[in-house]
């Protein structure tokens, strides 16, 4: 039996992780098929109808309407596209940056390594949210971002991805650095070095495959964190900007409307919660499956 089959067997035993994978697959399918689902249901996420504000669920609007009379279900589907896209891309970007930095720090050691460890220590300890808020409030035009992007409707999307990736890479970097330190001294790496392989080749073909497991686990866990950060920033009005729907910005008005329409606050938050907890369970299951020596606690 190959290593992947063994991993799959261990993964299957983690029932919560299995259920989480199914839930995430379902959400992803709903996000990808959102336009089709919306046209089948006959709902438009951006159609404002001020005569039908805050309506209760009805056949025309399965989950009711928001404060501008827009269909809540249609906006939740749009929000799924945005939240999952941001989570996936920002987590992947963090993984790429973190792997690169961690590999180099672990392989070469020395001053760069010491600097990296200090930086990640500091980033982990700092009060991150206020700093993210400052970053989100920066005017991109003053940063020299090209006009076409700075004025784009999707600017808020790119910006949130960039901001959370900027703080998300440290966990991955630490993990990769730790694994690289142990793999670096193994016989097959020494053999490759003795045969004349350069550092780039050794890192890419010999070390990288052996640090893949922690990278996969860390990326899954960080995708959950990224979605949380996105939702907080969007909720505060600093992340995804309306009219683009995100689960976070759908909640922005919910607090003022909580006496009139308490149910508006439930669905978007519930979806964020379920997505993030599913990603955390999935990461836990992947850790048990890919790295069984790390113990059943999965941390």
């Amino acid at each position: 039996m190959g290593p992947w089959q063994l991993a799959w067997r261990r993964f299957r035993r983690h029932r919560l992780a299995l259920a989480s994978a199914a839930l995430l697959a379902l959400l992803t399918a709903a996000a990808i098929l959102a336009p089709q689902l919306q046209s089948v249901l006959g709902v438009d996420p951006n159609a404002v109808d001020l005569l039908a504000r805050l309506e209760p669920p009805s056949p025309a609007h399965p989950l009711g309407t928001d404060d501008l009379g827009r269909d809540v279900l249609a906006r939740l589907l749009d929000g799924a596209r945005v939240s999952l896209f941001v989570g996936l891309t920002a987590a992947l970007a963090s993984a790429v940056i973190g792997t690169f930095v961690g590999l180099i720090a672990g392989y070469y050691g020395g001053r760069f390594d010491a600097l990296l460890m200090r930086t990640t220590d500091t980033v982990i300890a700092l009060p991150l949210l206020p700093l993210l808020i400052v970053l989100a409030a920066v005017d991109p035009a003053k940063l020299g971002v090209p006009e076409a992007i700075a004025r784009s409707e999707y600017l808020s999307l790119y910006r949130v991805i960039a901001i959370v990736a900027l703080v998300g890479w440290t966990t991955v970097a630490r993990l990769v650095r730790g694994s690289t330190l142990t793999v670096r001294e193994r016989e097959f790496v020494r053999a490759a070095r003795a045969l004349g392989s350069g550092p780039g080749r050794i890192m890419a073909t010999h070390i990288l495959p052996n640090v893949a497991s922690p990278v996969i686990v860390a990326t899954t866990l960080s995708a959950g964190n990224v979605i949380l950060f996105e939702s907080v920033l969007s909720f505060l009005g600093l992340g995804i900007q309306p009219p683009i729907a995100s689960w976070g910005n759908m909640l922005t008005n919910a607090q003022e409307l909580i006496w009139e329409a308490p149910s508006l606050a439930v669905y978007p938050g519930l979806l964020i919660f379920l997505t993030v907890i599913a990603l955390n369970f999935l990461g836990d299951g992947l850790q048990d499956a890919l790295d069984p020596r790390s113990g059943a606690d999965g941390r």
Partner: protein
Amino acid sequence: MIRFMAGRLMQMATILLLMSLLVYVLIGLMPGDPIDLMISANPDLTPADAERLKALHGLDRPLLERYWLWLSQALGGDLGYSRLHARPVLDVLLPALGNTVVLMGAAFLLSVAISLPAGIFAALRPASWVDYLVNLACFAGISVPPFWLALMLITLFSVILGILPASAVSTAPDPSFWDRLRHLAMPVATLGLLSAGGVTRYVRASMRETLRQDFVRTAAAKGVGRARLVLNHALPNALVPVITILALDVGALFSGALITEIMFAYPGMGKLLFDAIMGNDYNLALVGLLFATLVTLVCNLGADIGYAALDPRVTFAAVRDRG
């Protein structure tokens, strides 16, 4: 010890300095500057007036020169004025800091009151339904969006049950102690529940690790009772690493406090900072962020000292080289 402290203080000063430069530059990149705000507030100002005002406030100088000026004034004890509050920054910051310390302290106590028993019980019965439930609750605690937890608590206790007020500050002119407590209940519960998930996981993992160790088995073999074994022998040892992690979490707790304060209109550092950033009150935002950073760093230092004091195997040199 002295070398350790000197090294750490140097490190903290460096981080604060870098932070102040970073935030100063970032704030310079935010849309609109104070003069633009004055112009939009007063349409009679001519472009020439604007130029004069900019020169008066030094805004025509290069960014680094302005930063240097700010830094030398700040180090001289002059932290400047808050634009929104029209008062010296420190006069605004210190009361808010006090409020945040109350909120975070109460939430911390609540979190520990939940985490210690839950983590210990779960560790004593691995793979039991208690362990399973605690694990599930921990995952829920680390996965819930903080503002949504606050919204749901408000929905339940203010809207549906109508037993708790939805804001953190009493509107009564002279609120009684009981009234204040009622207003604090939900903010403290939000922040405490948010932090309890992570802390319980640490307690559980550390306790399981400790219960496996030889000295615990020896004590059990010598006939020490179960309660005594857990509470007197295992627990103190299991808590040592937990304390370090708790202090490292202060930064995260502050982020949680920021959201909690915004949700419940609680007059603390987090809300002050947020309003300052949103309201272009640059000086207050800058000094406030540095204050929050300083508090976090001091807590981390305290944790390292406590760690070395509690665990005689750890020397200060080892703490310094850790990681």
